[in-house]
């Protein structure tokens, strides 16, 4: 399993549109499983409801973990997507 700690820089937090794009991205890597965790909870990044329920705000610390195939590449893709969310 590969993991990386990140900080969300999107000024208005993780909202539905970027969340839904993240879900699409993650689903494309199936069956590799991507999880997003905060200090309290860990959710499957393929579930938009779960992602939104984290209530991630600007400045929230999160950890991306990838398990399955191609872990390094998937982690890279997911991490750079999360870091690129600017809306």
């Amino acid at each position, binding site marked *: 399993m590969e993991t990386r700690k990140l900080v969300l820089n999107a000024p208005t937090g993780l909202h*539905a549109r970027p969340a839904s794009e993240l879900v699409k991205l993650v689903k494309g890597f199936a069956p590799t499983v991507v999880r997003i965790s905060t*200090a309290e909870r860990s959710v499957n990044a393929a579930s*938009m*409801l*779960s992602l*939104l*329920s984290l209530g991630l705000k600007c400045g929230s610390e999160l950890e991306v973990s990838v398990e399955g195939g191609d872990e390094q590449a998937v982690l890279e893709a997911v991490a750079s997507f999360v870091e690129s969310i600017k809306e």
Partner: protein
Amino acid sequence: MTVKGPAVLFKRPGSGTAARSFDEAFGLVRSELERQAEGNPVFAAHLEMLDDPMLCDTVKDNILAGMSEPEALAAARDSIVSMFEHIDDEYLKARADDVRDIFGRLRAAMTGGTPGGESVIPDGHILVAEELFPSDTAGIDFKALRGILCHKGNNTSHVCIIARAKGVPIQVGADISGIKDGDTVQVDDPLAGRLQSIASKARAAGLKVYVNAANLAEIRAGMDAGAEGVGIFRTEFLFLNRSSMPSREEHETIYREALLACAGKPLTLRTMDVGGDKELPYLPVTVEDNPFLGLRGIRFSLKHQDVFLPQLEGAVDAARSVRGMHPEWFEEGSPLHLTIPMVSTAEEILQVRDILSGIAPDYRSLLELGIMIETPAAAIDAPALAVESDFFSVGTNDLTQYIMAADRCNADVAYLYDPFAPAVRKALEFTVEAAHKKGIPVGICGELASDPRATGILIDLGFDSLSLSRLEG
């Protein structure tokens, strides 16, 4: 209380057609949304939510936990909606409406109708129905209603419980024949207003008004109705009617949801009060000659720690997780108040504290630990028990029965079961005095709290809170 207003007849969406299973309903709603999603971003987002594994998983988990399909759907809706409503972000909060809408479609499809949404009832009307099922109430926006007239049902029907908790007058057993939409009708509800009058009297005297609850729906309904917290959350339902023991994670999920539903106000969680006459299918049955003097409440929990431990662990986990989301709720002490039933000695409290220290050395910052005062031993030794407790909660039903040594269900001695008897009064007086000498709060959560004849007495005795039973009105 009597209210008048224009009638609106309840229409169960598509009633008459056969009901569908959850899976069939899901397929129907999915194909309709797929059609609507083309070029419509709102419906496209709804389709995505519908396909979300969390939605199906939550419903299926509820079905596995023994709920009927409509109940499972309503419970899943409530838990997902509340998750969104508690996000500290106005935009995401509003997504709760999308979730409601999707569940409304599913519900309509399951009850045999065309998927569309929730039943729409214009504001200020009186809903008139032959009978309202739990699955119907799930789709009704009570806040918009002035009252409910129902032909079938009784005061303990689900719809009555919910309506009263929401402060909506309801009359069951009403003759509704011949009523048409728009007719002016009248609802007579002798019970509505009774709780409100107790509540306002208590609040005026500076007491907190809590609500009793046995599940998440009741907690939410009570908080919606303006309760300042939950005075007793009976957790037995988690243990009964199932074939295996609930896991630490199951406890954690429910308690977390409950804490979120209370939004920082106290949640008094009573640890399982089983044993005696309530047996668990997954534990060997022991027949007792005298179950009410036997292995129940904390006695049972300490003997069956394999059942008790996951509950305490789940409670600690839930508090920790909620504190992570809302540290501000913990600034003046934890909103999680754990209360132990059937305590008779200080030793029992210390044993629970030992177990909690083993789970989390810092548990004192995560929860308050109090006890139920419901045995004569606890009332008589209240000054000593107060030393080990963060609060007291008086359960008048058991306390009365044990002090008077009278079984309320035995017609020959039922006259002795009197919560107004001098002996019970003295026990209450002594308990309140002991709590206040030690500087801990003491609340009352038995049926007496919901009895309007007792309100003045309880205020005079110095109780800090009343927890009202919604069944009582």
